[in-house]
């Protein structure tokens, strides 16, 4: 029996998305072709785009479909950097962002970008005032709507307003927030001037039950953004390449389904999550919830197990059929110490002793019970097997 508690990594395909995906996959035609077959494909694509725009609170022309979160983030940050104001070279980068953002900014640094970090709060959030302090004169800024590791939800409206006030273009990474935090690009952008405030927002389909391989970057119609990919004029010239009609259809279907159950489902997940957190604390008294206890993603339980090796915990839970996560892993598969925990002021040992459990649409009480049944024993063993310890 397997218990899947890694929905933040990827969550099961929704039946509605699967149906829309496969149905659209049987339609022959390149959406860029002018003949009848192309027009059929184009109709499906634009239907999907309108649905996605509706769900994300933007205009259809502002939806740039991509292959997923990483591409969206790269497109936004590279594009905003290339179109920056002539005298600006600073990039506002809060600590604890997703690697897709951090590594992209590192790449920008090679072409002259100067990183302006913003310290995380001990609860893993971005303090809007600290963010605002970093903004003046910056070329661009970026921030997570919700932290993908520790689950802390940021005050996206405040971050956006600060960027608008400072006249700095802002990208929001809403990949982890999608489906769990109300997201309206229009509301978040508010009445910011052209090219300032929120100009771009990244989301990915597979976090809400669409297939892996489709995502979107919302790009404000007034944004200044150079394309990352070249080779065609599709999607305002911002994303060259044949458009993925079945992926778009599936993403649209998943968004509609996620929206229809938004309140009920997030309430259900919050209940399951709190039972999981309470149960872990009861089984392992030294265990500690990291991240904001109140402003947190409904399905996220990020737990510090003091003195335990995350790698060992992960292994022992896996043997018990429980799939959890330590955060990110390198290409070879090594669990990395959590850069988010470090940014929150945790020690190196802490950063190696955390586990992330994330719940989603298919999670049930049985999943929580499986963790609670295995965690005490796993902790006892994993805290004996100290990788840093010496015999």
């Amino acid at each position, binding site marked *: 029996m397997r218990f899947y508690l890694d929905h933040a990594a990827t969550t099961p395909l929704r039946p509605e998305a699967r149906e829309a995906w496969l149905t659209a996959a049987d339609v022959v035609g390149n959406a860029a072709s002018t003949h009848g077959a192309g027009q059929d494909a184009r109709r499906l694509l634009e239907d999907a785009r309108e649905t996605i725009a509706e769900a994300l609170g933007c205009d259809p022309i502002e939806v740039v479909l991509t292959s997923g979160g990483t591409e969206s983030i790269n497109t936004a940050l590279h594009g905003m950097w290339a179109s920056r104001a002539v005298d600006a070279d600073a990039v506002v980068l809060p600590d604890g962002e997703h690697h897709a953002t951090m590594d992209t900014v590192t790449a920008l640094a090679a072409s002259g970008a100067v990183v302006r970090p913003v310290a995380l709060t001990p609860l893993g959030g971005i303090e809007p005032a600290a963010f605002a302090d970093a903004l003046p004169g910056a070329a661009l800024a970026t921030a997570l709507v919700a932290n993908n590791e520790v689950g802390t939800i940021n005050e996206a409206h405040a971050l956006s307003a600060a960027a608008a006030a400072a006249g700095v273009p802002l990208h929001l990474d809403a990949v982890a927030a999608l489906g769990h935090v109300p997201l309206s690009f229009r509301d978040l952008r508010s009445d910011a001037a052209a090219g300032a405030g929120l100009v771009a927002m990244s989301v990915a389909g597979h976090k809400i039950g669409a297939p892996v391989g489709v995502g979107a970057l919302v790009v404000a119609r007034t944004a200044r953004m150079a394309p990352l990919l070249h080779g065609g004029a599709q999607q305002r010239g911002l994303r060259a390449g044949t458009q993925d009609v079945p992926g778009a259809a599936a993403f649209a279907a998943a968004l509609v389904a996620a929206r229809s159950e938004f309140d009920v489902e997030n309430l259900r997940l919050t209940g399951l999550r709190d039972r999981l957190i309470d149960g872990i604390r009861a089984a392992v008294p030294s265990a500690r919830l990291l991240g904001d206890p109140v402003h947190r993603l409904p399905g996220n339980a990020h737990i510090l197990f003091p003195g335990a090796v995350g790698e*060992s915990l992960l*292994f022992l839970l896996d043997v018990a059929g429980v799939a959890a996560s330590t955060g990110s892993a390198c290409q070879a598969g090594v669990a990395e110490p959590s850069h988010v925990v470090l940014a929150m002021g945790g020690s190196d040992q802490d950063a190696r002793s955390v586990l992330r459990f994330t719940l989603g649409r298919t999670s049930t009480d049985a999943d929580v019970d499986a963790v609670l049944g295995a965690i005490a024993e796993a902790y006892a063993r*994993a805290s004996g*097997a100290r990788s840093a*310890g010496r015999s």
Partner: protein
Amino acid sequence: MSGGVDSAVAAARAVEAGHDVTGVHLALSRAGGTLRTGSRGCCTIEDAMDARRAADLLGIPFYVWDFSERFRDDVIDDFISEYQAGRTPNPCMRCNEKIKFAALLERALELGFDAVCTGHYANLVSTETGLELHRAADDAKDQSYVLGVLTAEQLAHTYFPLGETPSKALVRAEAAERGLSVAQKPDSHDICFIPDGDTRGWLAEKVGAEQGEILDRDGQVVGSHDGAHAFTVGQRRGLKLGIPAPDGKPRFVLEVRPVSNTVVVGPKEALAIGEISGERHSWAGAAPTSGEFDCEVQIRAHSEPVPAHASVSADGVTVVPDVPLDGVAPGQTAVLYVGTRVLGQFTIDRTVSAVPVSA
């Protein structure tokens, strides 16, 4: 599972023998190269992938565990500081001693495993006095030397499925038969953490290279060098001596003095060592019952064992070989054998020349 053919076949045999096997690839370097080049054999993404695919074929779970910090502390830093002290370390031995059969074994036992199984070529033999470590059936591949550091406690949780296979070719053939994609993968024989096999260049980068003098045994300057660490005892090539020996015969490195950054050279006869001793030692199984015994001594992974007489005291182990040993450097490990059995080992601290000193 390193990603090589030996550990893949060892895993396959362990599975076939009915054990509950989990594949583990050790991440030993944080800054590993991405793709394999030449004979470098570990720490690359491609090797991790090869190991994973072998585990997939065998239907066993597979994990990558990070021992890079301990590897850096216990193997890489030790390697550097040994060279800085003018000694010649064997990093593979340190890795076996501190990582594979220590850090990994400790964790495995904590997690509920019984043993670490590897693709080393060596044999374990169970006797009335306990487990014994023996040479592998294939002399050419025998790796008992680098396992000589294992203790009785470690041997009790160790499993070498390849030890009785008479040749590596058979292991490769078996891998091919089993459909393991690594069947024809080249052997690794370089030091895994030195990417391009250029040990001298790597050391120069780590410890710095400063010009120093090359002396003969009378202390007369006969040449110069670009860093003493680059020389090993017994070395003849690359000395570029400006002043020839009086008798015109070739000269060899006799001694490396890292503190004064000097290298001492002399005739081949002066390389002959009549006695070696060292303090740091261990027994691979039951300790010898007598303080003095006859054995064979081997001082390099692929050198010939030499008949010898050993004596053990509170100060360590002293060995007098029946015929002088060539090219012995402090820091090397002397492994003692009786027949095929590994008795134990010591790190050579001190050597005594077999012939009286004269320039």
